[in-house]
């Protein structure tokens, strides 16, 4: 693909779009249109979305987002509203947290508005054309693990949404920066000093949040669907011994269903899609105490399967 990326815009052009008709860029199959007067948003986008394709200005955007101060009260408190479709569904936020909120809001749009895919709450990484789905409860370490894998040559398909084409085992890539919280920020910086991070937002409801540029593979923005082969439930525990153990399909089904954004909305067809999906997978629990351990376990998973 030779389409223009965000990196082709200099700072002046970037502000002109953001403060004017909106910056339109692609994330996997979706197009975002974003308006914002905030320097921190411009800085974060330039750093983390440099390789994302730009979309036509006169085309169709799936999601229209903007940051806007609503009146005097926002202005006096240094707050700003995050708008979706020109509506303000959320309370005002401090400007310093705007970047974390943008990333959160971009996820929110995907989670609640479209249902053409079965959407699971999971990170997705791939190597040699084989995708591994990493669901996880908050704190289980899925983001830290996928960040580390992205920095060691794996392709990151998604940080938050495993998007499954109904009735298949094909996943739709949705490459976005990886959201890192609190200790994970330093951990990843130490793991790979050259890692590119966006602005750090302090004191959000999740603590400190920063994002890692993770579209590092040459095919990061390729739109082709990838077959999923493994469902791995990571669980990080400081000092734990590595354990990669097979997990039951029914149990995995249940977990994935409970952590899906739209399994319930899709009704019986959601059940059918999940059944087909789980049948095509090998499921594992991965308990680990260090990123390096988990990395080597993930490599062995691929090699065990393909004998490379």
């Amino acid at each position, binding site marked *: 693909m030779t389409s223009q990326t965000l990196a082709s815009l200099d700072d002046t052009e970037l502000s002109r779009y953001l403060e004017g008709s909106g910056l339109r860029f692609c994330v996997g199959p979706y197009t975002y249109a974003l308006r914002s007067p905030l320097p921190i948003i411009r800085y974060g986008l330039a750093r983390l979305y440099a390789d994302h394709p730009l979309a036509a200005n006169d085309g169709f955007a799936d999601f229209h987002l903007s940051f806007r101060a609503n009146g005097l009260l926002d202005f006096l408190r240094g707050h700003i509203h995050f708008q979706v479709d020109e509506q303000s569904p959320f309370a005002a936020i401090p400007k310093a947290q705007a970047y974390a909120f943008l990333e959160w809001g971009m996820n929110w749009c995907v989670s609640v508005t479209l249902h053409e895919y079965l959407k699971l709450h999971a990170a997705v990484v791939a190597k040699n054309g084989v995708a591994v789905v990493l669901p996880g409860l908050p704190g289980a370490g899925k983001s830290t693990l996928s960040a580390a894998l992205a920095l060691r040559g794996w392709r990151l398909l998604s940080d938050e949404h495993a998007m499954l084409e109904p009735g298949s085992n094909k996943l739709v890539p949705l490459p976005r920066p990886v959201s890192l919280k609190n200790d994970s920020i330093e951990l990843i910086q130490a793991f790979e000093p050259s890692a590119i991070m966006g602005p750090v937002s302090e004191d959000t409801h999740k603590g400190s949040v920063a994002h890692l540029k993770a579209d590092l593979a040459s095919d990061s923005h390729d739109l082709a669907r990838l077959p999923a082969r493994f469902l791995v439930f990571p669980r990080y525990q400081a000092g734990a011994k590595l354990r990669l153990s097979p997990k039951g399909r*029914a149990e995995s*089904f249940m977990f994935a269903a409970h952590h899906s954004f739209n399994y319930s909305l899709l009704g019986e067809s959601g059940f059918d899609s*999940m059944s087909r999906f789980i*049948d095509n997978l090998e499921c594992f629990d991965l308990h680990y105490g260090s990123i390096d351990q988990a990395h080597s376990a993930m490599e062995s998973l691929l090699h065990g399967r393909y004998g490379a």
Partner: protein
Amino acid sequence: MFRVWRLTGPARFYDRSESAFVYYQVDSGDTHLLSETVFPILKALAEKQRSTTELLDHLCQSDGLGSGVTEEQLVQQLQSLSAAAIVTQD
């Protein structure tokens, strides 16, 4: 009185011969993870509604998982399935 057990509504099974299976209730949209021990009971009730005695006979005649079940165990299982609104008694 001759009371029969039935499923509370149409259901789907995701069973891969493990220690547990997934039971999906079409009407409510609820998904349950159930122990394999109740699988033959629900399969039997999915075919048709049955009384406790009929159910016990059916399970004992099969050579599967439910063949060794006692009446006491069966009643207990039916009661807990009933409490979870999976089966009901007419």
